[in-house]
């Protein structure tokens, strides 16, 4: 393609700078010796070391991870099943569009509405059973609910790109339904399933609104912790924590991209 016009180039680079300026600021001040204020007082890794000895932050990080892992696992299974169910079977046009709408609702609805609805729902369910206290259980349910839709949509688009020739060919060769599913569909779907799972995982790690409304005192996650801390006043420790989170995100993104590129090859 032709080279970019200098105006376009400078606009583009300026925009990238704009995107990264705040994050860069956080990273810089995470290694600044000064505890308050913005004067540069020398390089230090103290704040990072302090993080690792902070028991509360470590348990919060663990919560975040556990929440993401469990909810992703369940949501991926459910979402994949739904995707297969929608794509591989003949439904009437009306049924198809209804299913389509149902899947898109969590994606387009502002999450605060979902959060409010779940708070009310859990409040009522709590009367029936104690297990619906604000806490990890509620959070997992909330996360799964929006993750299913994302996973289903990703897997479905993968299924659509696979097409049904392969299935027909397998059946022509007298494959049973079970065989078609296990030996043909699943291997072909796998890149889509993995992509959906990774999408769900990152969405869960990053989620703030749903967690905010359903968390209990023992089940704080990193985004909630950072939010509460930041409202009182920013400290270099928070900068260190945030920089770490950004770095981990970079690793996840690059890793995910590498994996998807490898799988696309087959």
């Amino acid at each position, binding site marked *: *393609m*032709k080279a970019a016009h200098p105006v*376009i*180039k400078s*606009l*583009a*680079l300026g925009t*990238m700078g*704009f*995107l990264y300026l*705040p*994050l860069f*600021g*956080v990273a810089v001040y995470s290694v600044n010796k000064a505890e308050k204020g913005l004067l540069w007082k020398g390089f230090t890794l103290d704040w990072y070391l302090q993080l690792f000895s902070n028991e509360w932050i470590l348990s919060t990080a663990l919560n975040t991870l556990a929440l993401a892992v469990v909810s992703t696992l369940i949501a991926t299974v459910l979402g994949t*099943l*739904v995707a297969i*169910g*929608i794509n*591989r*079977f*003949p439904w009437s046009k009306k049924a198809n569009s209804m299913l389509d709408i*149902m899947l*898109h*609702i969590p994606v387009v*609805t*502002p*999450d*605060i*509405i979902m959060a*409010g*609805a*779940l708070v*009310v*729902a859990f409040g*009522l369910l709590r009367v029936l059973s104690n297990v619906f206290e604000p806490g990890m259980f509620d959070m997992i349910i*909330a996360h799964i*609910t929006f993750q299913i839709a994302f996973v*289903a*949509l*990703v897997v479905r688009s993968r299924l659509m790109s696979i097409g049904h020739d392969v*299935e027909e*060919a*397998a*059946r022509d060769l007298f494959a049973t*339904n079970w065989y078609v599913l296990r030996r043909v569909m699943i291997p072909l779907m796998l890149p889509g399933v993995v992509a959906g799972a990774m999408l769900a995982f990152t969405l869960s*790690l*990053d989620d*703030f*609104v749903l967690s905010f*409304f359903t968390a209990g005192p023992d089940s704080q996650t990193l*985004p909630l912790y*950072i939010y509460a801390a*930041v409202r009182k006043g*920013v400290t270099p420790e928070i900068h260190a924590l*945030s920089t770490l*989170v*950004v770095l981990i*995100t970079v690793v996840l*993104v690059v890793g995910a*991209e590498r994996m998807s590129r490898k799988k696309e090859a087959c």
Partner: protein
Amino acid sequence: MPNRLFIWRGELTTRGSLTKRGLSFLSSGMLWLALFLIVPTLVFMALSFADRGEYGEIIWKFTVENYQRLMGYSVFGWTPDYLYILWRSVVVAGLTTLISVLLSYPLSFFIASRPPRSRYLWLTLVIVPFWTNMVIRAYAWFLILAPELPFAKVAAFLGLVPSGSALYPSPIAVYLGMVSMFLPFVTLPLYSSVERLDWSLVEAAQDLYSSRTRVFFKAILPQTLPGLSVGVVLTFVPAMGTFIVPDLLGGAKYMLVGNLIQQQFGASRDWPFGAAVSMALMILTMISLQLYRRRGEEIELL
């Protein structure tokens, strides 16, 4: 319809057994969504018609008072406060989307003009903030807008803020935060369309039209419409309901509808009113989606 045998994707089967199998796949996921999404939303809708006790308890008595308050009719006479918040949310979301689109085009063109190898690098650079936590990205602006840094100093010089104070909370801070938050949401889908641009058409247009803008509108915009539409929807709707950015960067001085809802579930302890406001937001969302659908594009978000 009689349960005849027919061929579906190479399989000899009946409609009935297909339906049964299909449902068995769909059931678990759809049941989950029904239980934890559809039913709560319906209950939520019902809640918007409920009453609030003196200390914040829910009283299940039918009333339209919440909607009346939303329209402005309260104990204090008529005020358009809440309607104004809804309006402001639409405006902020709209401006954020517009600015993001204006910045995303040059960015997409730039990335598309890179050699294929470094494109991945640039895309990764755009994706990383996209996946980074919203809270971090919002509070990071506290540093940039702090009183010690030039930006706040310039603003103080211009009289926009008292001298010595930070550039937040303020509408400027909210817009900066919103655009930096939602920019990747537009850039990524837009880029996928820009990458597939047929430049021969653009060159043809350049031969036909003398003005750059006409070339853009006649040759580039139509081709990028699919990606652009997805980006706009993915930005406008969440931007209307966002509450972290206005909360951290706007404080109580610049409230959006997301903050209003969150407040009702927090210190204001007025769940029914919160539900009513959420319904209003829901209606706004559906209207925007309808307008988007009317343009003929099918929503193919992922």
